[in-house]
């Protein structure tokens, strides 16, 4: 009898500790979401459906061996860039052109790039001798720079930075010399002030507000001030689940999306925050461990970059909620309410699972 499935398809070979870590984290997230959405079972249900969709994506991708993925990589990247260009011309959405409306579904092409950029970088570097030479570095920077620019132009600075970071991690993991790393970092720091001049008005406003939130307590400073009050008033043990006054009284805007960590901090206190951080650290650590098991350069670089990028989400979001970083629209990974980001993240972990499952392949 002919097989219905490709020969490489086998029964899931998933990394149990990583999967467990993810499930615990998302379960915790749903509990917090219930409180943050004002005890809306409806919201929790919709989020659960998304998580389900993400898990399906994870299972499917975990069955695609890395070398198949590698062959498809340039095409996926090219598709992503073309979709980004399409948003330039046909984008919809409130004042920004991030969304592409396909009639049935609307989605953000920048989500694809979160996976496609590290994939393309790993694809480009894997046949080369590592650490890469100058020319390879320059070309690699081009690979990540083009989509980052297109996304920043939408304008969506938060996602652009995440996409750029995912690419830079590939370079870092490929063994880039330390003196080069410091050199490039220094260069970036020198160029950063120039960013001010290309920023849109609302982006500048956010930076100014970040520097002095009390300057406009009713306007853009509101988020930061209210979020800090919520976090601080949580104390060591928190006010208890469903008892956060800041969030119940609706002082925190976007409290079930980008600022959900404020609700968690208020209701579960520092202990809850540390538990959350530990979960993230465990997931990222496990991801890096899987990466180091891989025998192929492509899988190794990709797995490492995906894990590190996942952590950047946490850093940026937790920094923003606690007033350490300016407000950029970066969700708390796997916990914030919202569509595409959860599916993308779980798809990324699907790739990690696949690299784990096929760790002994040499092709």
């Amino acid at each position: 009898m002919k097989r219905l499935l490709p020969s490489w398809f086998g029964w899931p070979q998933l990394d149990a500790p990583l999967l467990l870590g993810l499930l615990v984290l998302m379960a915790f997230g749903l509990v917090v979401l219930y409180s943050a959405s004002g005890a809306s079972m409806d919201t929790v249900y919709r989020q659960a459906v998304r998580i389900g969709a993400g898990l399906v994506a994870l299972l499917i991708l975990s069955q695609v061996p890395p070398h198949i993925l590698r062959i498809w990589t340039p095409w996926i990247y090219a598709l992503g860039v073309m979709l980004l260009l399409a948003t330039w011309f046909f984008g919809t959405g409130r004042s920004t052109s991030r969304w592409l409306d396909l009639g049935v579904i609307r989605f953000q092409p920048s989500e694809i790039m979160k996976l496609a950029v590290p994939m393309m970088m790993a694809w480009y570097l894997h046949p080369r001798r590592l650490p890469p030479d100058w020319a390879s570095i320059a070309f690699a920077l081009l690979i990540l720079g083009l989509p980052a620019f297109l996304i920043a132009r939408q304008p969506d600075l938060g996602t652009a930075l995440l996409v750029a970071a995912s690419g830079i991690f590939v370079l870092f993991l490929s063994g880039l010399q330390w003196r080069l790393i410091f050199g490039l970092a220094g260069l970036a720091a020198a160029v950063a002030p120039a960013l001010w001049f290309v920023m849109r008005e609302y982006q500048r406003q956010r930076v100014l507000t970040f520097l002095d939130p009390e300057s406009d307590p009713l306007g853009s400073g509101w988020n930061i001030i209210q979020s800090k009050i919520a976090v601080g008033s949580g104390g060591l043990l928190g006010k208890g689940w469903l008892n956060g006054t800041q969030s119940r009284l609706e002082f925190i805007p976007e409290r079930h999306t980008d600022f959900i960590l404020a609700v968690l901090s208020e209701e579960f206190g520092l202990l809850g925050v540390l538990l959350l951080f530990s979960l993230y650290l465990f997931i990222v650590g496990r991801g890096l461990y899987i990466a180091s098991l891989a025998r192929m350069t492509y899988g190794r670089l990709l797995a490492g970059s995906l894990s590190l990028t996942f952590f950047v989400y946490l850093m940026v979001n937790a920094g923003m909620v606690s007033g350490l970083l300016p407000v950029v629209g970066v969700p708390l990974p796997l916990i914030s309410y919202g569509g595409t980001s959860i599916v993308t993240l779980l798809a990324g972990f699907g790739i990690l699972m696949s690299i784990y499952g096929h760790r002994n392949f040499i092709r």
Partner: protein
Amino acid sequence: MKVPGLAGRVSAQPIKDQALEARQFGSRALTAFLLLAAAVVLLALRYFYLQVVSYEEFATRSVNNQVRVVPAPPNRGLIYDRRGRPVAENRPAYRLELVPEKVGDLEETIAALGRIVELPPDVLETFQAERKRYRDFDSVPLKFNLTETEVARFAVDRHRYNGIEVVPYLARHYPYGELLTHVLGYVGRLDADDLQRVDSGNYRGTTHIGKDGIERYYEDQLHGTSGVEKIETNAQGRTLQVLGREAPVHGDDLILSLDMQVQQAAWEALGDRPGAVVAIDPNDGSVLALVSKPAFDANLFVHGISGEAYRAILDAPGRPLYNRALLGGYEPGSTMKPYIGLAGLELGAITVDHRVFSNGRFFLPGVSKPFRDWKKGGHGWVNIYGAIEQSVNTYFYQLALNLGIDRMHDYLAQFGFGARSGLDLLGENAGVLPSRDWKRGHLGQPWYPGETVIAGIGQGFNVATPVQLANAVAVLANGGTLFEPRLLYARKPAGDEQARRVAAPVAQQVPISDRANWDIIREGMHRVVHGERGTARAIRPDPPLQIAGKSGTSQVAAQAEDEDMDENTASHLRHHALFVAYAPFERPSIAVAAVVEHGGGGSRNAAPVARAVIEAWLGQAQ
């Protein structure tokens, strides 16, 4: 060095050392993990600082946070005429507001609301557009100016609508309606474009902003400064009590120099004919009346005009949206003659004894087509007095040639022709005062002598607005002072007892070589109304009032030889009637310009309008 291509395999490169790379990766991965562990420690320290070290502070603020800070918009300043009659006031009204985050299914809620409150598609469109500048937990106005029935019906059903409230506010009202629209303009819903030109922080609680006219020009003074209110809220966010407030500073009250009785007289004198009237006090440049007809009721725009009503205004005859007094460009025609005569006297081109024979036709050498007088057969011998009194074209044709276009331009510019007057309304038309330079710059053509000839009677390229015409005649009346006319007479900041006078700035002083020359021109204008053969002798007022004036006709269609314009001419081809005047003759206190579109002759049709305006002003106890 080999330039790396996009090929998946680069065979020319040295063979990869897999074991070395794996080791390299391992060390990098470990470094990365240690770095991010350090980052987590840093983050944890930040949360420790907020949640443990600063706990007391934030806990206190969190309790206080049941106190919510909301903006308190200032009351818009009122507007009065110079005798204290309110012309723009604030009336208590109710609006429906909605907090998008709290209502659940927005469409369903709006559909349900639509059954108790009238919500036409226009209102919903505006609401959807406006929503974007509010945060989801802010209250967004849905419908303004609810009727009493709507308020009552909502009150009955209120418990069913979470996140929706009826809010009292002050709505702008213009008691004189269309009579003042072209002066006051109106306020309308604040939109994204408006926010570009104001301090958005100060407009956080404001729903309406000046869109046109005085309301727009003096927006900053009328609006005031927003305050904040501290409100204690319950768990649903409903207001329990107001705990304190940083009071808003209300907008300034404005006193306009308009006199509603004069305005009314001008409005009525125009009748059903499209036209404009501007009256200025020549002593201080303050505007006594500014009428443009037809107009529309500005109150329609305050609550958001429906598409249907707006189309009705657009389709109405005579273009009611068009402010003729400010934007209407008319050929000044013979109303220019007094200034050209004055130029001739002052610049020494003519003297008071200089005489010209008018036989009805004036020829330029080498041009076969004659320049005509308005009276067939001409006026015979006339000096400057007669030339103005009877409006003798031939006299001014010759004078214009003697002066030349550039000298004429430079002299007339001192009366404000060809430049915006600086009136305190936006969008003024600058008009045209032609010269060689102007024609070369705008049309790229040389100047022809025939154009100088017709410029001598205010025709050809000349374009002036009613505001310019009135302002120029005010200069003749006051003996040489050109003001930037002002509608604003005084300003009363909130809390002040006394209004503060705002004086019209002087734009320039016309240099005078001999006062007697001015008196000659003024006497000529006096004879236009009071002389035996004065073109406007039909409006001669009862003694002791004496008026000086000058009629003019603004050509609409080119006139064929010997074809007279009369009542049978199709109305849209009929000329515009113009009249400028000032009074009383000895001690002028009002200068007027009246334009009646397609009215025909200036003396017959525009002069009575000017007289009615003058009498309305002088008839009152000063």
